[in-house]
């Protein structure tokens, strides 16, 4: 299965195998040379064939006299090598018989005709095939008459043997006379009506057939003749032609049959292939009206031939393959580039996030420093200088005593003094114990209260109590904000 896939993908499947009997020679050998070999009784004639535009083009003929099997093979091998041909088509000119039949049937298609003629010729012949023979049929163009050729297996085997010894692949074994008759009936039928006689001659045989619009006559033939016998046979056949009739002549015998016909006079002689040096090979290579019968008796191992409508398959395959390579290649690059970009962006995002985190850390640090500064500020706010306050209190008490002395009033003596700040609070408790007169103590207390008031302290609680020989002054205060903003 792999090989057919490769053949189809690489387009080889659309080039017919040289062994494919269902394909015309023109298609099989459109791009490769072919050696056409005509086997006569007395030798071989080889011609190089090339096809251009479906038409066969023949090279110059080379002839080899029959001197033995090896000599024939050597000649053919050398000829093929010279023309770089690896395949040959063999035209057998001997070993056939021809008969008129009205029991033949036509195949549904050319390929069916080939298959039936190879595998079950009885169905086309309408009667049992001749023993040890292979057949070919030349049909009347419009009616159910046909000339049935029977070719001896021995001659076909000789042709196959020749090809094998020559190391050439045998593209087709074909009867030149049968092919020529089919070709002429198909191609020149208009010129042959209403009736005519066909005289086909080559260098070893002569074939005669009378044709009319509605029937065919009995074929007459002489095969495998030497020059003298051939000349005699032709002379006799010419002599029996209808006087004043129409004759289609194909003559490659080299005996100038046209001159013989002219000598008889009063005849219409058609020579459509007069300029054709190889009329039988032309008929074989034309595959007209259908692909020629292959008399090859062996099994052909031909690679199948894909129809042209399947050409879309390799086009699609290679087109999509190319598109896949291009698209997948491009997309791989795109994907790789995009992934690279993606990684780059992700790395940048990571770096930017780290930068953002750093900035947020800075902000957090700033806020922390701000809070620390605020705490420190608040701490200082609740921790005013004590010395200054003590000096002011002392000054007030001294001033009170001085004033009392100047007015000759009793003074007081400080027994104890304490300042007590509440833990973490802007509150202060001042306790003073004065020894002395009540009025003097009261004067001192009033001055101290006035001092606190001037300094911005606000009173939470104030009380004076009696102590032995004096008075206790206890003042709970809210401390003022002294630092400003």
């Amino acid at each position, binding site marked *: 299965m792999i090989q057919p896939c490769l053949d*189809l993908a690489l387009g080889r499947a659309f080039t017919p195998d040289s062994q494919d009997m269902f394909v015309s020679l023109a298609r099989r050998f459109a791009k490769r040379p072919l050696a056409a070999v005509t086997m006569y009784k007395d030798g071989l004639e080889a011609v190089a064939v090339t096809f251009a535009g479906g038409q066969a083009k023949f090279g110059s003929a080379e002839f080899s006299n029959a001197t033995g099997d090896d000599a024939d093979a050597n000649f053919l091998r050398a000829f093929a090598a010279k023309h770089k041909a690896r395949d040959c088509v063999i035209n057998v000119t001997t070993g056939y018989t021809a008969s008129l039949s009205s029991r033949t049937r036509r195949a549904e298609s050319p390929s069916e005709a080939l298959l039936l003629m190879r595998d079950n010729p009885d169905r086309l012949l309408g009667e049992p095939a001749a023993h040890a023979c292979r057949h070919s049929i030349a049909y009347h163009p419009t009616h159910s008459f046909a000339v049935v050729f029977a070719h001896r297996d021995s001659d076909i085997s000789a042709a196959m043997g020749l090809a094998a010894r020559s190391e050439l692949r045998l593209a087709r074994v074909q009867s030149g006379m049968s092919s020529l008759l089919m070709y002429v009936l198909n191609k020149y039928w208009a010129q042959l009506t209403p009736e005519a006689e066909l005289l086909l001659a080559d260098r070893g045989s002569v074939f005669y057939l009378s044709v009319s619009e509605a029937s065919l006559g009995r074929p007459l033939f002489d095969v495998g003749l030497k020059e003298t016998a051939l000349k005699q046979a032709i002379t006799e056949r010419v002599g029996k032609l209808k006087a004043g009739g129409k004759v289609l002549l194909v003559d490659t015998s080299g005996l100038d049959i046209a001159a013989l016909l002219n000598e008889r006079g009063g005849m219409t002689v058609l020579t459509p292939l007069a300029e054709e040096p190889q009329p039988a090979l032309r008929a074989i290579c034309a595959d007209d009206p259908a692909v020629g019968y292959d008399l090859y008796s062996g099994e052909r191992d031909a690679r199948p031939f894909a129809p042209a409508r399947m050409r879309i398959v390799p086009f699609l395959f290679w087109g999509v393959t190319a598109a896949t390579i291009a698209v997948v290649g491009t997309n791989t690059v795109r994907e790789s580039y995009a992934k690279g970009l993606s990684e780059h962006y992700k790395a940048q995002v990571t770096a930017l996030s780290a930068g953002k985190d750093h900035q947020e850390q800075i902000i957090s640090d700033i806020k922390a*420093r701000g809070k*620390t500064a605020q705490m420190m500020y*608040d701490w200082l706010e609740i921790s005013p200088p004590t010395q200054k306050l003590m000096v002011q209190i002392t000054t007030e008490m001294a001033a009170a005593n001085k004033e009392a002395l100047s007015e000759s009033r009793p003074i007081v003596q400080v027994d104890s003094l304490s300042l007590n700040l509440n833990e973490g609070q802007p509150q202060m408790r001042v306790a003073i114990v004065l020894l002395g007169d009540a009025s003097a103590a009261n004067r001192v207390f009033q001055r101290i209260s006035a001092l606190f008031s001037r300094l911005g302290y606000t009173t939470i609680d104030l009380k004076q109590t009696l102590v032995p020989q004096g008075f206790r002054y206890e003042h709970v205060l809210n401390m003022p904000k002294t630092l400003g903003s």
Partner: protein
Amino acid sequence: MKSYTLPAGILLAVTGLLGLGITTSLKHAGQASAQANADHSDQIAASADLDRARANANRMEKQAKPADDFLALWQVNLSNDTTIDDIFDRLDKLAIANVLSPSGKNFTNSSQYFFDGKQLPVLSVDITVAGDYARTLSWLGAVESSFPLARVQQISYTGTGSSIALAAHLIFPRKFNSK
């Protein structure tokens, strides 16, 4: 022709698979491209976030300058690196300088000082100096100058004449923990 029906089918199937490969390739490339675009958007957003954060940081840095200046001025007075021996030594020296007699020195480390709604680590120091009243005031001022962050939590004068004793309870904040 029938001989090539299956190979043609196989080739067409392979062609179909290749087409599927093209589709998959296009899909993957599209996804990678979309991911790259999304990542690019993330990068732009992250860049904008960074710019905003940087602008905020710069603005806050400027706004925080007074606070930073304040901290720079006062931070050095925090006693977190100062040992109790240093403090007592300096208190003693200030007392002697003021012709006072220091005594009753004691200290405690505490992390339970309640301030500003938080527990503040502090060093509590008790000291008593005895001598002339005016000199005790001078010593008190010297202490407050020498330890500007110290809070004179409590002072208590007792005695009379030239044998006045000043018992002081000082609070040295170790650290202002804003967190």
